[in-house]
């Protein structure tokens, strides 16, 4: 099951920043990392990933460089200091959101095995 579009719109940039927090990556690598680390839940449409990266770059949350050392050019993206600050703030926000959802029982119910609530 993939995340709904509206939810992804808010989560996508945070997820990208989080993945880039470890190391710099090129586009396809990033797509694969997002999919594999979230069991496919955040398998982002590739047609939207590159605009997302361009937007993050415009906001100076990520920076890019072309690397020609691997035989063919690849554009690598890395998180900037400003991006890290943004990620920290977003992380806190998501945690607060998770707490709120937990308090409302949204998360606990969602984590119940199917049929437990029946």
């Amino acid at each position, binding site marked *: 099951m993939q995340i709904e579009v509206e939810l992804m719109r808010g989560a996508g940039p945070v997820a990208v920043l989080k993945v880039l927090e470890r190391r710099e990556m090129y586009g396809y690598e990033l797509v694969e990392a997002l999919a594999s680390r979230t069991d496919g839940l955040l398998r982002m449409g*590739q047609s939207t990933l*590159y605009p997302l990266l361009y937007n993050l770059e415009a906001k100076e949350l990520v920076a890019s460089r072309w690397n020609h050392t691997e035989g*063919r*050019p690849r*554009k690598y993206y890395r998180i900037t200091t400003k991006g890290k600050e943004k990620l920290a703030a977003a992380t806190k926000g998501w945690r607060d959101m998770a707490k709120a959802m937990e308090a409302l029982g949204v998360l606990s119910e969602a984590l119940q095995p199917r049929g437990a609530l029946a």
Partner: protein
Amino acid sequence: MTNPSPSLPMSERSPLCRLLRGGRLHSTPSAAELVASSELPPELRAIVLQVVRRTGGWRFEQADVAQELIAHFEDALRQPMTPTEAAARFGDVATAAKLLRRAMHRKRGLAWRAPSFALRAVVIAIACIAVAYGALAVHFYGRSPNIATDYLAQIRALASTSQPVDPAWPRYRAALPALRGAEATHFRGDERLSHLDPLDATDAGPGWDAAEAALRDVDAELRVLRSAAALPSLGVVLGQFDDADRASIGTTTAQGDGLQQAVDWIPLPHLGELRRAAQWLACDARHAAARGDGATAAKDVEAILGIAGQTRGEFVVEQLHSLALLALGSSLVLDILDRWGSALDADASARIASALDAAVDRDLRIRFAADRLAFLDTQQRIYSDDGAGDGRLLHTALPLAATRWSGNASGSLGGIEQLAAPALAITAPGRREAREKFERSVDAVERISARPVWTWTKEDVESLGPRTQKLTDSGTSPLQLVDDLWSFQWGSSALVVPAVRQHLDIARLAVAAHRYRLGRGAWPDGAQALVPAYLPTPAIDMYDGKPLRFSIRDGAPVIWSIGPDRHDDGMSPLLDQASESVRWVPPFEQVDRNGAQLPHGDIRLWPRLKDSAGTDRSPDRQ
């Protein structure tokens, strides 16, 4: 593959920036060249080209995206993955292109985005203005005035006199059509408005014969005018003209509705016709005097001054008409004395003297009692009412404006003017502000007018000005909604009073001297010899409040004033009355009405040695 110089920030990679940095504008391969040189299968090449072209980005931006997408698909194919699968996972081309285009725009520098922001701001501003203007228009066109007070009744109450038993107006009404008929018969159509008006003709001027022929046709009507002028009251009720009244003044236009009444204030069309009747009497007086018939001339003078008394009312326009007739009568007397003085025997002179004395005893001051109520009535018809004395101009002002500005009797404005009206109305003074400005203006005129002119200060005169301050300075637009409704000229009306009073006193003094000479066979030595036998009260010099100067020069009398410089020069120099300076000008005035510098000196008021054209007269006073 070629590096599309990715290390530069986007703002520094604009085509212009590249050019300025010494590079070629197209130093990098195009997206198409990059795709063509790639190893991608045709369907993926097509996707890359479609995406980059649809972005509409700059050449290097497209190359940048193409390079990245080529790398993306090459990575996908090495997974391994079929081209079809890679294309399917990539998603919708149009969405990708749209999002990339937006992202490109965000990445561009502020200088590139500024026009876009500015355009967006302008559009938003226009939208906001349109909404605000819509609200304004709804207020302007949607609301109705609150007409709560019958000001017309209050104005009628000001006159507060019961209808006279024998009002003069019906007699005038019967005589006026014949006067117009005589003009149509004997005068050319354009003469009435020209300086060659036969009614103003002298025995030396053009039109004299035509006027004489016309006078013969209206002899009966002139007798009616004289009899009507001897009655105490005119008997016209404001706003109650019937068809017979309208026919008598030569108009078929029905009296306007309340709004039109309110601003045209209040239909007083008879004033112009009565003034014309007075001009007929003046013409008759000159012709009679020229024939040696001083008695008829005296009766005509009495009639003119009588009409002046009848037409004086509570409106300033009535008062100004009355003052104009007093000026006409007094000038006529001086004219007769200058030209045909021998026609005035003792009886005729005494009648004229009596009429002039009665006129000068009247209260000549300017009063705005009716105009204040008229102003309030106009306001209640064209302003909204917030219940606290304030409000904004409403659409009901538009027909009025159309009539006033363009003479458009239908009372309609053009589409653009109507569209612009709400905006222009909002710039007009509010109800309270307009009223306060109006009241300040008329209060000042009344206050100054109530004092003798010789006590006026320079500041008083300046505050009157050629005309009092307009309410707004909104230029020359035909939609100066308030400005043109009340462009007060009442400041100058205060100046009319001393001017007319001066005319009357000159005539009184000249007639008194004439009577003295008739009785005693010689001119008096001075004005004091005339009081009180020939002059009940001294004639006053309006510039210092002292008696008008009277001297004998070369065996003939001279009446003179110290002039607007308010300095007695002892007749040296004595400026000729026929010069530009003869027209009465307010004290302290430095220039005449034509802007010419006024010479300093005393002013000869009578005899008038030259006419207005500068022609020598032949005084009949020796």
